[in-house]
């Protein structure tokens, strides 16, 4: 458990480092790898730069996140069975609150970036025509062991979008789904109440970020 916990934390930090290729010759042209590389590049050179206001960093990250993740797809899965019985308004309210929660969560983790790099190792097929990009997160501290990070990508009409991130075997999307299933269980299945809890959490996160 403790190894995994460290892995999860470090994964939050690795998104902002330039990727290093383990096998340049074989993989340099693979579009999935190019996608992961350019995303890491964007974070470190465009978003997470010095002398930039915190709120500006979060705004930029929000835009990149919305462009590069298939949010409706993830949001639907994360709601689980409750999606079917929720109204269109409830689904939208949830999706917006969920998106904001993910953006603010990761914004908080960026603050602790400590120079990690990622090494992309290769790709392999996932279920339903999706693709896994395998990478490891390497810390500048030699005592910290490298962490396995897998990107699950979906191909939407020729554009890759992130469908999931898997850290040391733990799927982020599955974790969110489990958490929200528990909350829905305890509030009688109300998606509206879940969206409200997320909004309240988002308020707290904004305060702790100082924006």
């Amino acid at each position, binding site marked *: *458990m*403790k190894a*995994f*916990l*460290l892995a*999860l*934390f470090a994964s*939050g930090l690795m998104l902002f480092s330039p990727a290093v290729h383990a096998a340049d010759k074989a993989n340099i042209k693979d579009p999935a790898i190019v996608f992961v590389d350019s995303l890491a590049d964007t974070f470190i050179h465009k978003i997470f730069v010095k002398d930039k206001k915190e709120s500006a960093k979060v705004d930029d990250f929000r835009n990149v996140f919305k462009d590069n993740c298939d949010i409706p*797809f993830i949001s639907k*899965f994360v709601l*689980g*069975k409750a999606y079917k019985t929720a109204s269109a308004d409830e689904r939208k309210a949830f999706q917006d609150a969920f998106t904001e*929660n993910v953006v*603010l*969560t990761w914004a*908080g*983790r960026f603050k*602790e970036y400590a120079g990690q790099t990622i090494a992309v190792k290769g790709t392999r097929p*996932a*279920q*339903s025509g999706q693709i896994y990009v395998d990478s490891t997160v390497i810390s500048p501290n030699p*005592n910290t*062991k490298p962490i396995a990070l*897998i990107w*699950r990508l979906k191909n939407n009409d020729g554009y890759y979008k992130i*469908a*999931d991130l*898997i850290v*040391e*075997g*733990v*799927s982020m999307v*599955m*974790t969110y*789904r*489990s*958490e929200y*299933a*528990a*909350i829905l*269980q*305890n509030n009688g299945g109300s998606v509206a109440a879940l969206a409200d*809890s*997320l909004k309240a*959490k988002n308020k*707290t*996160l904004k305060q*702790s970020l100082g924006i």
Partner: protein
Amino acid sequence: MATTRKLILSGFLALTLLFSACASTSSPSYKEDPLEPLNRGIYTFNDIVDTVIIRPLAMMYKTVVPVIMQDIIANFIDNITTPVSAINYALQGNADMAGVAIGRFMTNTVFGLLGTLDVASALDIPEAKTDFGLTLAKWGVTESPYFVIPLLGPSTIRDGIGKGVDFFLQPINILALNPNNQTINDLDWVRLGAEVLDTRARALTITDDIKLNSVDPYATMRSMYLQNRRHSISADMKVIDRGVPRKENYDFDFSADY
């Protein structure tokens, strides 16, 4: 000292019974967490003890003790628990990894100043970590219900038993069973304390992260623990079955009903 351990154990049992009474009465959300009301109670108890005692101590440990010293302590604890991995690999029928674990232990103890330096990793000797819970899994004990251990945190009943067995498999604990040997017993308590602090210090940022960002931290931790545990078992099985591909838990179908 042996009586103290018994007292603490019965104390835990009493506390878990107490907290099961206070916990919520909602029905469990998962077939894998039928003990949810009890577990949520224990989680709340752990959280209080952690907030009041353990976390502040771990924070102090992290800020006051120099990083080099923290690494030395971490290495020492990792090394002294390596024989347990060796024994478990042997029980799993994995002679290769048992050998690696023994090699690690000998290298670090003899050349790494009694385990305070991780010479084995510098020599590219691979990691060799397993436990009795995984041994039970290999023997076919299917995953048992999620169970939060008082003070120790997330586990399952099978893995909780595993932790207990491993605790007593440690050489220093076998020696400590002799109630006449006061020095060994005292050393053992010190080592246990150091291990708790070291573990807690290493996990500080993550638990803070989960508690800050999660609407239901209990459910988040449970999900992460169970997924990570299944992944460990699956990875271990791969080593034993020599690369026979196994279905990964994270390779789920987004359109399926779970």
